[in-house]
């Protein structure tokens, strides 16, 4: 039987008059990288705070590593590493002191053990040479890596990461993703991460949940979600994708959804069907069609479709 790292049962949290998390029920298997996806204000950060026992649920229950967040939050925080919305780095302290403090806080027993672990992590993250620098003088990417190192300091079985690659440049984000993948594989750590970045979720996560307005909209392996949500898809490259053209497309019975993404027109079909009538319709509506491709929906497409359906 698969061990469950996180179990949410009808988890609800109100900030009167807003319901930030609305009856969330899901399970995160241990040792997996779980992506928690949703637009801004969907309730991702509130969920992480609930998981850490920083907030009490209004209703429902969250069990993390076998501990109830209401009554055993201290146990959870002892066994969990967290990288929250802000990196939480003490900018006027050195990298070594930042980790040194949390090593003390997490009771890494001896000074030599603390030093060895700090060195191991800083070397692994490529930060060792600059360990004496004030962390505030570092780039955002380096600070984020340091924050990730801090979250892993006490070798927690679970890490909760709130948009760990937000604001990072492409190489730094890739490096962080690589570290996370390696961590989950090497140490069997469960990673629960929130992200806006669908490509990231697709690459990293073995399971994703999509939430909107605090409610669970979909959950599963990225491939399963694509299969559920994304039927056949047609991508049209060209110009002049007017609202009228899109409206005409959406009226067609074979079209499930149509939207312009990155300058391309993405058409989700209910079933395999010929594309020529659709192309003719578009041309008739004034669209200049340059190329038509058949393809599979990406996780981003699935996400956008889910958001569209929810509206």
């Amino acid at each position, binding site marked *: 039987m698969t061990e469950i790292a996180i179990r949410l049962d009808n988890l609800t949290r109100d900030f009167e008059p807003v319901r930030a998390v609305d009856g969330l029920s899901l399970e995160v298997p241990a040792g997996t990288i779980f992506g928690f996806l949703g637009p801004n204000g969907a309730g991702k950060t509130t969920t992480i705070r609930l998981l850490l026992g*920083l907030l009490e649920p209004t209703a429902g229950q969250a069990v993390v590593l076998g501990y109830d967040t209401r009554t055993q939050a*201290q146990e959870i*925080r002892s066994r969990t590493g967290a990288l929250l919305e*802000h990196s*939480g*780095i*003490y900018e006027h302290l050195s990298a070594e002191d930042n980790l040194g403090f949390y090593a*003390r806080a997490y009771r890494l027993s001896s000074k030599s053990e603390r030093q060895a672990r700090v060195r191991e992590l800083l070397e692994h993250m490529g930060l060792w040479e600059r360990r004496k620098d004030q962390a505030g003088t570092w780039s955002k990417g380096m600070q984020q890596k340091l924050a990730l190192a801090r979250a892993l300091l006490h070798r927690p079985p679970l890490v909760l990461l709130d948009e760990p690659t937000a604001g990072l440049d492409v190489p730094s984000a890739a490096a962080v993703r690589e570290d996370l993948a390696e961590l989950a594989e090497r140490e069997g750590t469960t990673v629960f991460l929130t992200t806006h970045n669908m490509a990231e979720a697709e690459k990293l996560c073995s399971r994703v949940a999509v939430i909107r307005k605090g409610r669970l909209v979909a959950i599963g392996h990225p491939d399963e979600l694509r299969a559920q949500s994304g039927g056949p898809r047609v991508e049209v490259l060209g110009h002049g994708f007017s609202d009228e053209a899109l409206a005409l497309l959406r009226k067609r019975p074979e079209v499930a959804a149509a939207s312009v993404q990155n300058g391309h027109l993405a058409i989700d079909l209910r079933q395999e069907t010929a594309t020529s009538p659709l192309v003719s319709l578009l041309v008739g509506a004034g669209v200049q069609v340059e190329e038509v491709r058949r393809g599979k929906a990406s996780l981003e497409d699935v996400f956008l479709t889910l958001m569209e359906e929810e509206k």
Partner: protein
Amino acid sequence: MSNEIFADVLAIVWKERKSQFRVRGSRMRFLMMLMSPILLATIFPITWGPDWLAQVPPLVIAAITSVILVAVMVPESIAGERERHTLETLLASRLPDRAILFGKLLVPLAVSWGVSMLAILWSAVVVNLVHWEGEILFFTLPIALGSPALSFLMALLTAGAGVFVSLKAATAQEASQILTFAILIPPMLLQIVPLLFRDQMRQFLDTVNGIQLLAIVLIVLVLLDAIVLLAAVARFQRARLILN
């Protein structure tokens, strides 16, 4: 306090010690704060002479010094941490609320008490240097015992009030300003009270000597400290801090 909590408090103290004196300009600010008590502890003893060692002003200097230092350091430690977005990560750690609170109060208390005692001892050195009478002079017993106690209790009271103000204020600077203003109110009220109850006060003061009066003040402060500290412990909770 159990050993475990003690170790947690020490972890916070380690961080606070580094934080308080490594923020840009913090050492200069600390030296500036040190200047006023040292100046007062130099000028007054020169003017008062040996009488300084047996009068109330050293008690006032001890109390004011510790209060001012705490009023700057506690907001920096609590509201400042929230302002710099490091508080939530700290709260997400395994450290218990009480360990965080006590650790954050311990450094300001120790520093302020230490500085106020330094100022008081320095004032005794000044008296001896300027008004040398052939033997070393020192404070009378009530002043020698009262100044450390009064300094510590006033620091603790300010620290407790500082927790409340820091939880409400948006920035460390705002918290520090509110706290300083709040500290100025009781002395202002004390100037009005004797006018209202002049006769009763005079009658009461006739019945007690200096030591008894000091003891009464200290007992009242101990009670106030206990109330404020217990309230601060009750208030300093993760959920409230996150929501704030």
